[in-house]
């Protein structure tokens, strides 16, 4: 669905992507992780045509995003990190805007608004930040576009809202849609995102499904640091040790520990996951 080849992008002197290649497939919920400033938002913006790749190719759904063709735009929705709604009632906004998306379902929108507990008759400007976010997420999902890009969707949401968000995203995912969620609040979305993409300032460090990760790495909880550990992290009651999975045992992938181990052992991890 999304193919990125040899992407180069910079902001004045700051190079964000240098020869980055990436493939995203339909039917998946991708988690896009990376430290602040590494380029997660930039990547999402390049995918939806808000920014132009300086060199290299970006192909989404068979289109070149930067050309901003209506056919392309009708199959994609981008939810920015800080969305500020217009001075308009949410329902009215949805009805007017939904006309432009061929698969928009207004009933679904109303159901989601009810599930999110946001009043559709109030204006965006009268809603809190979290509620505005939930409203636009409800709208985005109701457009039934093939690609949904979310930039830090759980930011600013209270705890019950985060659970609502998880349930809603899970229900949304279909075999021909692709959802990309950029986040650094890993715990909010832990069991939802699969595959995991980790970016750093040099490009894509990792792009693998949870199954692949648990095949190659082991995340063990033990009272002390294991010798063979690639990375260890102290936690309540002991240590989480990340080692190569030599016994093909299955254990739960701890995404936070994965993130830290990837950053501390770039070359090793790249080697382990080389295809």
């Amino acid at each position: 669905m999304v193919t990125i080849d040899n992407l180069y992008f910079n902001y004045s002197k700051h190079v964000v992507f240098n020869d980055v290649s990436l493939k995203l497939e339909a039917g998946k919920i991708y988690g896009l992780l990376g430290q602040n400033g590494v380029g997660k938002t930039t990547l999402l913006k390049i995918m939806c045509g808000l920014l132009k790749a300086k060199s290299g190719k970006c192909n989404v759904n068979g289109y070149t995003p930067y050309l901003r063709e209506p056919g392309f735009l009708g199959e994609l929705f981008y939810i920015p990190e800080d969305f500020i709604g217009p001075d308009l009632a949410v329902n009215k906004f949805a009805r007017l805007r939904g006309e432009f998306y061929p698969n928009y379902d207004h009933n679904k929108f109303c159901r989601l608004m009810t599930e999110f507990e946001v009043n559709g008759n109030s204006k965006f400007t009268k809603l809190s930040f979290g509620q505005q976010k939930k409203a636009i997420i409800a709208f985005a999902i109701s457009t039934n576009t093939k690609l949904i890009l979310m930039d830090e969707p759980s930011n600013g949401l209270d705890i019950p809202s985060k659970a609502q968000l998880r349930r809603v995203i899970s229900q949304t995912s279909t075999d021909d849609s692709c959802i990309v969620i950029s986040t650094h609040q890993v715990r909010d979305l832990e069991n939802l995102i699969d595959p995991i993409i980790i970016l750093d300032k040099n490009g894509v460090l990792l792009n693998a499904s949870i199954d692949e990760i648990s095949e190659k790495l082991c995340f063990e909880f033990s009272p002390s640091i294991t010798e063979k550990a690639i990375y260890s992290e102290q936690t309540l009651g002991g240590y989480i040790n990340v080692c190569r999975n030599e016994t093909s045992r299955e254990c739960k992938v701890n995404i936070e520990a994965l993130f830290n181990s990837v950053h501390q052992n770039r070359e090793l991890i790249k080697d382990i996951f080389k295809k």
Partner: protein
Amino acid sequence: MEFNEHKPIYLQISDTICDSVLTGEWKEEERIPSVREYGGILGVNPNTIMRTYDHLQDAQIIYIKRGVGYFVNSGAKDKIISIQREQFIEEEVPKIKRRLELLGLKAIDIF
């Protein structure tokens, strides 16, 4: 639903489903939620639920009726009990034995 740090998620969810069958919450020959429905209830990636259901199908605890959905197999309760008994004997009993030894206790003292 709380997920712990150790077992893969799909196995934890399997355990939850097995518990539901044992308690009678999910009855035999009755339809259970679809992959998407269940994922939506838990807020978990549908692929994970798919893995769970595959695992349960392999263990013959559930079966799929094409075009209708997933159902709890008849005799699932008994299967679960036997699987969990095996697990208990092979995994948990050795742990208890080791703890008893470490603490210098004998089984008679406890049971």
